[in-house]
């Protein structure tokens, strides 16, 4: 795992990952303030640390190749990703709305890389 901890210095390195560039280039984030993007990257670095995996690998683990050679979403991989996200957010000591938002931000990274998934909405 080559992603360093979530420091300011780590962020430029994240830009080297195709999955991260794809995420940051998405319409909602490309024009977001720098501090907001930095916060998201910090979260992602944390998830990478927690799982011991690089960003591209987090995405790849949610995909599989079918017998006909097509790319499909791996239900097992997506479930693992969900567990990792929940586990990491739990490890941050967040709860309630804050935890839900953090987890959904991380889901956003996977979503913008083609992994269809939904997290819970904050309705209480």
């Amino acid at each position, binding site marked *: 795992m080559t992603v360093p901890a979530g420091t300011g210095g780590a962020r430029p390195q994240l830009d080297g990952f195709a999955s991260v560039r794809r995420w940051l280039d998405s*319409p*909602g*984030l490309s024009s977001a303030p720098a501090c907001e993007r930095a916060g998201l990257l910090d979260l992602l670095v944390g998830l990478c640390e927690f799982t011991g995996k690089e960003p591209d690998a987090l995405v790849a683990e949610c995909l599989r190749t079918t017998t006909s050679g097509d790319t499909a979403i791996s*239900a097992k991989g*997506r*479930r693992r990703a*969900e567990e990792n996200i929940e586990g990491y957010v739990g490890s941050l000591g967040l709860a309630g*709305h804050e935890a*839900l*938002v953090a987890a*959904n*931000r991380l*889901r*956003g990274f996977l*979503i913008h890389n083609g992994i*269809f*998934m*939904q*997290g*819970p*909405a*904050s*309705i209480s």
Partner: protein
Amino acid sequence: MEFNQVVGTRRSIRFFKPWKPVERSKIQVMLEAANRASRSMNADYPRAIVVHRDDLDEETRAALRNPTTTADLDLAPTYILWYFDLEYINGAQERLNELVDLHVLPPSHGWSKAYVDDLVWPQVLKPIADNQMALMFMGCVETGIAICNAVNAAVDQGLGTCLHAFTAADQVKELLHVPDTWVPVWLQLVGYPAEEPEAGGQRPRRPLSNLFFEGDCNEPWHEDLEVTEYLKREGMIQAPAPFPYRAQEVRMLSRMYGLPE
């Protein structure tokens, strides 16, 4: 709301007001609209279970959730689980005879009880009853028509609605005591829209000439532009997506509910 306006305003609503329950009376209107839909043989195809999110126990809520519908289920206060009953064919003979008695199926069009009993039942309906593919095809088509009425009735009453794949049918079957003969069709979410009812504008549609023909398939349907203008005035054809502020609307709603952006 006028019919043309209802058809034009219908959208798949994905952001609901989770705090605002749907009045039971409005659900009844939707169900009655479904019940009044066109149906071959006057058979009872559709079945539906109405459930309210906040009345569900945790086990059922968890069973309904999956990685692709979690936010949807959180936001919508009411779900209608649509099925058709494979046994719809039972009683079709009696229902057709009922229509003969009511002068709905008249001799002027060749109908009689003798025709129903001696020909339609043994030669048409019975073979359908024995043909699983035909049963499934008709069940899906006819229930879809009923659901369409329910969707439009929801829009007419100011509700938002969206049809979703019925992904937790096995779990639901056990938890809600669904009979073995019911086949899941759609999961309909219902609530008051948190987004504008226009949901960012009307979705792209290809022109009629791409889809419809007159006389034969070499002759595309030619639109009468006066009719097109009339439908714009009536609200069936509305301003196309995206409204200039749609991206911001989605962003703000996502933030309100803590959803991914």
